[in-house]
């Protein structure tokens, strides 16, 4: 499959649009149709990155959630089971699409592209550098977290004897120390390479919105307009 390459600006707009549409309550079939389309696009992008298993797994969960929402859950449902089901459906149908979109953006955007996009949008360097560091830290946190988990498995304390506070403490404390250390060394390395110079940063990445970008922007803008009209102006 041809890999789709989108402009960071398009991706940011998509995060915004997806979050907006899936979070707002959908009632009419029209709204549901828009919402499902808007959910399927990030899933398609996920598959496009080669994560077929995750995409399929999500589709199954999403299908189940839609089914439950349509046939089992109504505003009048009560009881523990239905509360759990409402929770499940809420997470799968309302949070996951935005999470998938965010994963896609972080996974596919190079720091250089991101910085260039921020510049084109006239965001101050200070803000874009901080955001770039946050993006850079996600994979690092994941790596650190996995090694800490390994260490816990080896000592047989993964569940810390069932005490939830300890379970969290044992994971978070080493993670925070690691991230602090890495952060400190990282900024030392960055300032020796001129970060913070009182000049406008430049970027070798030349961004241009292409057909795929315009298509995505059009689809998401149209979805948002349709959604708003059907929700508030009828």
């Amino acid at each position: 499959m041809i890999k789709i390459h989108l402009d960071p600006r398009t991706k940011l707009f998509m995060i915004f649009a997806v979050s907006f549409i899936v979070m707002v309550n959908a009632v009419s079939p029209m709204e549901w149709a828009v919402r499902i389309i808007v959910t399927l696009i990030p899933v398609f992008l996920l598959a496009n990155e080669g994560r077929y298993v995750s995409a399929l797994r999500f589709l199954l969960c999403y299908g189940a959630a839609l089914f439950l929402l349509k046939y089992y859950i109504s505003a009048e449902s009560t009881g523990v089971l239905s509360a759990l089901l409402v929770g499940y459906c809420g997470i799968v149908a309302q949070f996951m699409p935005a999470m998938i979109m965010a994963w896609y953006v972080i996974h596919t955007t190079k720091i250089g592209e991101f910085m260039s996009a921020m510049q084109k949008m006239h965001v101050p360097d200070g803000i874009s550098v901080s955001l770039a560091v946050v993006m850079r830290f996600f994979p690092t946190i994941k790596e650190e977290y996995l090694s800490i988990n390994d260490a816990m498995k080896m000592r047989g304390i993964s569940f810390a004897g069932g005490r939830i506070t300890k379970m969290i403490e044992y994971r978070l404390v080493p993670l925070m120390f690691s991230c602090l250390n890495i952060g400190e060394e990282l900024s030392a390395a960055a300032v020796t390479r001129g970060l913070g110079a009182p000049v406008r940063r430049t970027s070798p990445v030349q961004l241009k919105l292409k057909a795929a970008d315009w298509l995505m922007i059009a689809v998401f803008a149209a979805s948002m307009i349709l959604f708003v009209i059907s929700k508030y102006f009828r």
Partner: protein
Amino acid sequence: MIEIKNVNFRYKGSDEGSLEDLSLTIHDGETVLLCGASGCGKTTVGRLINGLIPHYYKGELTGSATVNGRDIAQTELYDLAGVVGTVFQNPRSQFFAIDTDGEITFGAENIGMPPEDIVSRKNDEAREMHIERLLDRSIFELSGGEKQIIACASVSVLSPDIMVLDEPSSNLDSSAIEKLKTILSDWKSQGKTIIIAEHRLYFLRELADRMLILDNGKIVKELRSDEIRALTFADTERMGIRPLSLADVTYTRENVSKHDEMLTLENYVFTYKDGKHGINIPKLELPTNSIIAIIGHNGAGKSTLARNICGLEKKCKGTLTLGGKTFKAKERLKICYMIMQDVNHQLFTESVRDEVMLSITDKQITDTEKTHRSDEILAQLDLSEYSDKHPMALSGGQKQRTAIASGIASSKPILIFDEPTSGLDLAHMKQVAGEILKLRDMGKTVFIVTHDLEFILSCCDHIVRLEKGQVVENFELNKDTDIRLRQFFTNES
């Protein structure tokens, strides 16, 4: 020219690495090697030159440091970026970008170089350093050696005249060190001034014009290039530094393993998600109660094998047979303990004693007995005085010993070390070797993933060499076989 005059420096809240009335002049084009034990101040000297002191690391500073006539204390760090370049020890924490191109161009972007120039500089740099194949890759796919080369390129892109390197070889295998050496000699031939703080010295023997040995923040010895080359193993041993030639390091040990049993690893087949890396070991027989070194190039599968022995990869169907019992992955987690390269990942509690007690999982033992036993183990590892301290407040070596102590407390028969001596000076390396020998005396079987020849010669009994995920050599280390080991470390490049 770099001039450091009567500098006294003390880090805020720590005596480690402080400088005492240090004066030093470095001429243009000179290659200066700074060495000495950890905490002797060699890193601090580098930081004085690149301006991280006083601009980033705070402390009490008197005296002056000037680079090309500019007073460092009065010059902003971003103005120094094009004058002094710095390569750090740990590739993991010096990368800003997550792709190689972005990393190389980062410095040029910061100083506002026009985009066209940035691209051409990047391409020139890649060509000069022969790293075209590394362009447009994710940082996370690179080996440690490749990362360090990208770090060199990303500094060199601003073409500074002065290069400061802070223990750049710590995480590298011998072939990566060879590449680093090539980069350094290219820089030297371009007339750059190079200041390099290091523990491992052998690759700098031909390059260094001057070697300074520091102790407690003072220069205690200064050697010219001909004197450096004349240094023998006995000389360096006496000065407390690592040898300048690997050919001098020989096997002289008396204290060897008296194992009689064997353990068997069978069917270790494991492939990472990328489908390229992994291990394939049908059968491997090794002596128990011995110290077994796992060697090979970066990416040969050493750490993967260690993780699999430990049982950290559930998917691996391999088994380990020890004393007539066969252990599957999940069961191996109960008999193996790994001391990780970054020990920060395995210290969880609020005091060193708690850390050790956490590993005593036997429910039959009462708390007082646990405390008693922990204190015994801590005494064995010279940690008694720190038993109430927070593990994160300790030095690197003390943290490592704390991790070893919890390994002993867990009473598991197999201990695995992942590069325990990366970035260690001679004295600390010997100390680790001594601790590992103690573990063997307690009856443990110890696996060590390592790149450190001296370390192997000072404690290991057996060698397993991996290449491309397969075992290519498996032999006992003794007077007759140490030549085989040495060949791997010296001839391979």
